[in-house]
């Protein structure tokens, strides 16, 4: 990559744990995106984490990547979340109580809602079909993951992305500013004449966060938009920087720690 400078020394880069195992499958590109953004990422199999839960305290960023954990059997993200909570409940609470960041992408988001750390649930797409396409997103809150981004176009690929929430829970979420990303009709939708909401998600919700914004879950895949050539419009205009719009989410996470300077691992 031409425009990303790896300026940080290895030892002071923020450390990212990307989970793997049981059918998660986006761990490699998610790790790559974090490293392109200047972090140091490890892929850790959930069984290795269960065996040695203490290692979670070595990390500042936790990522549940996309995939098909347990083949979506018994409901997307459910079985993996069960396994996680059965063995790592305490460690997860401890991790989230620190000044850390966590992200769940696609299947990772589904896992996070099943873990109960993010509100709502992800039901089957409105037409019942798995769908791979690009979407346009508008940023709705101040999550550190989304700092400085207003609009973003990235792809989705899922069969269960229909965000569902009870009315009173939705009100609570509104009040706490937990709606992070919504589907809008932007340049991709206009380009390929696509509807804005690809799956029937309530209130067009594509991603939500905790009240403090540190935990983010989203159905779209920002790591699949880390290079400009991934964008369907790139063939029409190749004279753009190499990095894609999705990379900013990972850069934001890394900068969150770098900017703090004083934290144990994230100093400049």
């Amino acid at each position, binding site marked *: 990559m031409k425009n990303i400078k790896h300026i940080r020394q290895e030892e002071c880069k923020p450390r990212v744990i990307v989970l793997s195992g049981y059918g998660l499958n986006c761990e490699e590109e998610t790790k790559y995106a974090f490293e392109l953004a200047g972090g140091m990422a490890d892929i850790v199999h959930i069984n290795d984490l269960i065996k040695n839960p203490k290692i979670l305290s070595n990390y500042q960023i936790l990522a549940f990547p996309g995939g098909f954990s347990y083949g979506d059997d018994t409901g997307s993200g459910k079985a993996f979340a069960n396994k996680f909570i059965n063995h790592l409940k305490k460690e997860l609470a401890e991790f989230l109580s620190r000044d850390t960041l966590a992200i769940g992408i696609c299947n990772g988001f589904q896992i996070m*809602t099943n873990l109960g750390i993010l509100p709502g649930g992800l039901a089957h797409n409105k037409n019942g079909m798995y769908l791979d396409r690009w979407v346009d997103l508008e940023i709705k809150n101040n999550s550190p993951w989304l700092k400085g981004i207003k609009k973003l176009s990235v792809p989705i690929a899922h069969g269960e992305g229909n965000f569902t929430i009870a009315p009173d829970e939705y009100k609570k979420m509104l009040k706490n500013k937990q709606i992070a990303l919504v589907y809008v009709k932007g340049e991709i939708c206009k380009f390929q004449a696509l509807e804005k909401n690809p799956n029937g998600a309530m209130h067009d919700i594509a991603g939500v966060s905790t009240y403090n914004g540190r935990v983010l879950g989203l159905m779209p895949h920002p790591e699949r938009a880390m290079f400009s050539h991934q964008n369907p419009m790139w063939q029409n205009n190749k004279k753009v920087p190499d990095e894609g719009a999705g990379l900013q989410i990972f850069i934001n996470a890394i900068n969150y720690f770098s900017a703090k300077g004083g934290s144990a691992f994230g100093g400049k």
Partner: protein
Amino acid sequence: MISRIYVVSNKKIDYINSYLISHEFNNSDVPKIAEALTNPILEKFSINIFPDIGRFSHIIEIGFKPGVTDNVGTTAKETINDLFHLNSNIGLQTFEFSVYTSIIFVIKNRTSLVEVKRIALALHNPLIERSFIASYDYIKKNRDLPLKVPLVILQKNIPVIKVELSKTNDTELEKIGKDGIMDADGTRRGPLALNLASMKAIQQHFIKLKREPTDIELESLAQTWSEHCKHTIFANPIDDIKDGLYKTYIKGATNVIRKKMGKKDFCVSVFSDNAGGIIFDDDYLIAHKVETHNSPSALDPFGGAITGIVGVNRDIIGFGMGAKPVANVYGFCFGNPQDKKKFFKDKTLNQEMLSPRRIMDGVIKGINVGGNCSGIPTLSGFVKFDDRYRAKPLVFAGTVGLIPRIVNNKQSHLKSAKAGDFIVVVGGRVGLDGIHGATFSSVAMDSNSPATAVQIGDPITQKKLSDAIIKEARDMNLYNSITDDGAGGISCSVAEMAKECGGAEVTLEKVPLKYPGLRPWEIWISESQERMTLSIPPAKWNTFQKLMVSRGVEAMVIGKFTNRPKCVVTFNGKEIMNIRMDFLHDGLPKHILETSPPVREHYEPILKKNKSYTKLLENLLKQKNISGFSFISQQYDHEVQASSVLKPLSGMGRINTDAQVFKPVLSSDKGVVLSSALYPSYGDISTYHMAAGAIDTVIRNTVCAGGTLKKLAILDNFCWCSSYDKTRLRELVDSLKACYEYSVGYGTPFISGKDSMFNDFRGFDEKGNPVAISVPPTLLISAISIMPDLHKSVSPEFKNIGDNIYLLGETHDELGGGEYYKMLGFVGNNVPKVNLNKNLKTYLVLEKAIQNELISSALSVSSGGLGIALAKASLGGMLGCQISIKNLPGSTSSTDAKLFSESQGRILVSVSPKNSPTFEKIMKEISYINLGKTTNNGKFIISNKTKIVEISVKKLHTLYHNFSKKMQ
């Protein structure tokens, strides 16, 4: 105790998930289990009480038949195990509790039982699934569905029998070969697919040994000698071709090309492994393999297709020391989905064949689940329709793999089992599924086709296995050799690997089973999915086993490799098989195949005058073989692994691309280009030109997208019919001659291939009249090319207003076998012929123009000719164009030919006015013409002498997507 947990959605109640659990838990534990299986935001559960869902007419419960893979059941079981921290020792059999899942469909509106039964039949496949219908009153009265679990209970059988061959006459030998060994109860076990000559060779062999063969020995020989495994039609001498077709024309071509390339040879591993391997860059190899899974897909489309795709994934995982799957490809040949005619396998009309629509939907879904669940992008694919694919569809499934060239200081494509190594089986367990798959696909399908040949894939078990092997065990240097358990199961994989060191000894009772009671021969040849065989030095076994346990993967030592040239199998201490390796692998008698020329008389039709070319073009664009299939492309994840560059759907108008580009190494800008081509309809006129056309098209597609002839390899998949028919064999020889000539001519080596020679169906129509349906001889050519810089990839649609539109190449009167004639109900005679020298020049100058970044778009002209190419480029970019076809280079005598001839070697290119002079300079060496310009008025206009076509681009878009919209 048996409990049933119902899980029902809070929102729409059109179905209910059911978990039937046979267990010994406390009553208070069952709600905990139910909670673990329910997402409280979306669902609620009830235990042993049918959920209150209001008034309905009937329910239809669809569950699996005993022994059929139940993936959701497996996950539920794992969840429960984990919930109560029951077993962390995977590998130990726990029969303490079982979970059986089913889906209960709710029929709300008042419906008659007859109609409900009809719906039930449409909802399930009786080969693998069972259905249970209950009325509202039944549920009201019983408040629960029956608590009966579908357990596999096998009859007690004599484990091993001797087959008396020495005194058996030829008629009986033939019968054993065709219908199988007879069991004690008089039933036959299913096809061995051994002909009389083979049976006699086996008989003689055992007479010499002075003993009778055991059933497992005979079954084992049948697997290893099957057409599916030995490719006898390609291996045997045919007419005066002494070395056989494969050695002469396929391997022969590759050898010549590699020699010519000398130092620039990019082939690394061809025809010797599970897939073909070429150089990607200094650090990596790329492997490619395309398989077919036709027969299983005809019986159970979903199961057939999913096992097809996860099966070919294993070919890649088993390439060299283990490659990582980085892309999936697919290809479907279906009957017309609107065809409602019924066919039966049996004369009594009890076994109905699935309809083309049912087959299509199931196959598409199978590739969807197999690819999406495995995290492998499904990039490249096609779908073709012809009535002759009605009974046996063709399902092509392929995978591309990536492997470092050096692994543990050794060349990664080399591997060898060593004497003394453990034989280790990793992955899924063995059941009755997939027995006689290899022998079954080697014969025509009829009422004796075995139902056990059907299997269901479990992509997650395979994903765990794949990750543990290629992301960990491989780089830890834990094994010496690896191969996939495909056709013939361990009987073939062990025998194959044993060649690397000498022989093998197997203790068959060690093989992990899905349920007790399988007979040794069944364990030996079962094709149960998601398994691989490895050769592991005893000193490394402990580390390997620990790694597998920690990844949730089952691994078991089932024997050891030896340096004695024998394959020996014991069962509970008793030797039940002892066959010499040379007889096992080379004992199959050779016979000389003969061919005779097919009688073919086709004429060019006389076409009507005074017609509307606008209407004709509109109609042609709507044809299923031409229009878009976004409904398939968009349900396959093609963005996973973050590697997509040129996607399956391109441009504003989302047209299907003929070639796709992806980036297998995230830190490298090198791209891989994939494409495929086939022209079964050309084969009605000439299989020679059918093969030539496919090769020319696949190369053209690849170069258009940015691929390079310097690094372009191809793969062959022959799907033939009635291959004992001498005229069919002559057609085969003709097509192979073209394969040789054109691959050598273009310098594009074959690196891998596969054949499926008996795509025939013999059955009955609705009136009980016998019918035979055979697929047309079909040759799929797939291409893979490495491009130095993916940023130079080119998509097919027009991009900018005012660009010049060029046609490269010559157009002739070659409508024969093409889509235009087909639409009008003709075959014709003037099939497109490939002019190798001219086309090669065209492709080389196009490559140059692309490398110099001179062109805006490039579309390979193929089915439907120039008219369709222009329409696709136009609607793909949602840009109008003003075209004149008055002076096309070549020799066309009619407007029909100018618009719709499928002459090979042509490319439709758009170039900005700024780049046009340089572009034209490069094109000087070849025939080309400037056809006109792209416009901003949204009108698609073609004139010959006068205006002959005018359509709005919006209408083109609607017509092109019409079929896909209907299929959604």
